[in-house]
């Protein structure tokens, strides 16, 4: 399991041959553990102060996931990737169904819950975390901030931009022009990719995850219903995933050898995802972006998430899409869901409603009774009982 650090240490000098290194860019961290703003760097001190204020308000956000187990799990991965910098980083899990993570210059890392539904393994999650830590270690936010100040000569740009990227301050999707002004440069992204890769490998994670995660992003984008589903915010604030995936695949394969079946932490990752699966998927369903939802469900099915849960949300997705034939597809999915050991109670209810729509009232009644038996405290009990009173 720990075989990769040694490979990584040997590989880093070789990586210097890549295009970024060839351009003379050093991807060593620019800061040491325990870093604080430089005494004479007033703008950096101001930036930290703003970020500390932001972090103080973030701590009170009702959309933070406060589950200790999931927070401990994420923090453990962050610490494993960050190594000696672990003590400088604070991790916050934000309830947001999009794909993103961000890291502020004061050590505040925000991970969106949608990231958990979009990576297939702990290695892939560690890839994104490593990438963000690399931005932090290279002071990219500070550099972007200084560039933005030069460009806009305003003191409020960064605060707004952080809110957009973290998704906890302002509505996502607004002020894209502002956001793009704060996006890291292509060069910074390449630096973060390579330094992130190094951190990933040194932490003993599979370096091949570094491009797999982007390949998944590309696949999701292509599955989004045409013209009506915006690219995720990460895609909008980061360079082309396709070229990045190709470059990383070539680099990793060359330096670390071919892919293996190794995935030591897969069970742990699936367990972590599954423990919050319903909440994560409810938030995803509420986006009404069923092209993406369908893709994610395929992903989860292949990962080994509880087939009953995946089937239930597949039923929800078909029902929400409402295209020709989707009612029957939803029905089939719910039937799979209730055939499992621990069925989602709402699968019974939705089967009841589908039967009701088709005029099969006795079948509907049976499913409704099963629903109420499985979920005695159901919030729609009065509605279901109303239907039952009208039924034979």
């Amino acid at each position, binding site marked *: 399991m720990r075989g990769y650090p040694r490979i990584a240490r040997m590989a880093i000098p070789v990586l210097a041959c890549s295009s970024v290194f060839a351009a003379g860019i050093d991807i060593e961290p620019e800061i040491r553990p325990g870093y604080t703003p430089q005494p004479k760097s007033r703008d950096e001190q101001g930036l930290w102060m703003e970020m500390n204020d932001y972090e103080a*308000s973030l701590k009170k*956000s*009702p*959309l933070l996931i406060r589950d200790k187990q999931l927070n401990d799990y994420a923090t453990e991965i962050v610490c494993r990737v960050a190594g000696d910098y672990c003590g400088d980083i604070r991790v916050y899990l*934000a*309830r*947001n*169904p*999009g794909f993103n993570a961000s890291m502020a210059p004061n050590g505040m890392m925000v991970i*969106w819950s949608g990231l958990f539904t979009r990576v297939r393994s702990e290695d892939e999650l560690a890839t994104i975390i490593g990438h963000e830590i690399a931005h932090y270690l290279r002071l990219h936010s500070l550099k972007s901030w200084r560039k933005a100040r030069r460009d806009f000569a305003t003191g409020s740009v960064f605060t707004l931009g952080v*809110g957009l990227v973290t*998704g*906890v*301050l*302002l*509505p*996502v*999707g*607004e002020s894209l022009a502002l956001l793009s002004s704060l996006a890291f440069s292509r060069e910074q992204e390449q630096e973060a990719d390579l330094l992130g890769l190094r951190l990933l490998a040194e932490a003993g994670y599979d370096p091949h995850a570094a491009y797999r995660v982007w390949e998944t992003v590309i696949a999701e984008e292509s599955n989004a*219903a045409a*013209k*009506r*589903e*915006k690219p995720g*915010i990460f895609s909008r604030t980061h360079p082309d995933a396709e070229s990045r995936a190709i470059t990383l695949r070539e680099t990793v394969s060359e330096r670390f050898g071919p892919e293996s079946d190794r995935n030591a932490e897969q069970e742990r990752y699936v367990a972590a995802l599954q423990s919050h699966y319903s909440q994560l998927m409810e*938030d995803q*369903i*509420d*986006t*009404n*972006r069923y092209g993406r939802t369908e893709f994610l469900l395929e992903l989860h099915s292949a990962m080994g998430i509880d087939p009953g849960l995946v089937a239930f949300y597949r039923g929800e997705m078909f*029902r*929400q899409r*409402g295209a020709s034939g989707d009612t029957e597809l939803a029905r089939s999915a719910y039937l799979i869901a209730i055939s499992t050991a621990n069925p989602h109670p709402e699968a019974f*209810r*939705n089967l009841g*409603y589908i039967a*009701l*729509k088709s005029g099969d009232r006795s079948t509907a009644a049976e499913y409704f009774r099963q629903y109420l038996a499985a979920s005695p405290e159901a*919030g*729609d009990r*009065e*509605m279901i009982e*109303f239907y039952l009173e009208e039924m034979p």
Partner: protein
Amino acid sequence: MIRFRNATVVLIIAIVASGCAAVEQYSLVPHGSRQVGNVVVPVTGAWNRVPGRMLAYARDDAEVWTREGVLLDRFIVIPGVPEGQPIFAQKAESAALPKFQGGMLPHELAELTESSIVKLFGEGNTTVSTDNLRPHRFGEHRGVMFDFDAITSAGPRYRGIVGTAQVDGKLYLLMYLAVYPYYFDKTLADATAQIEAARLAAG
């Protein structure tokens, strides 16, 4: 030069004046009953009708009323959404607002509303849950009511109640939402009375 400057001033005054004349203002919702489209709402207490220009999300035929200001409370009347259209105005297709489909069942209407409210407050910045779905009769028409809870990332927590019915393939929806707990509780009784007693105009 002076003549040019005078002409400019006159032009600016003319533009401002014409703009003022065209600007829709807040207006008091008269006591008694108010008809929005063919939805008749018995007005309970004092409400102000919000100018349409302030509300990008409101459908052209909808009305939004408020008592304390739109950020604190809103009463929304949406009359007759045709099949295939969202309950809120969709400015861009990429917003992916869910659309009303004929024959939707009660829980589907709750889900439609839930997802629409997520879009209203900002996707990714809001979680919405519905509860207490129950049958309700709007005059001769069968419908449902339900409650919802909206948690926004930086703003306040909202709660709301919804009454909705499908009649002749169209969706009629009344919604009250307000900052929880103070403003929500303050106007809940009046708003509930308005929703429960709403009817479709005869004919």
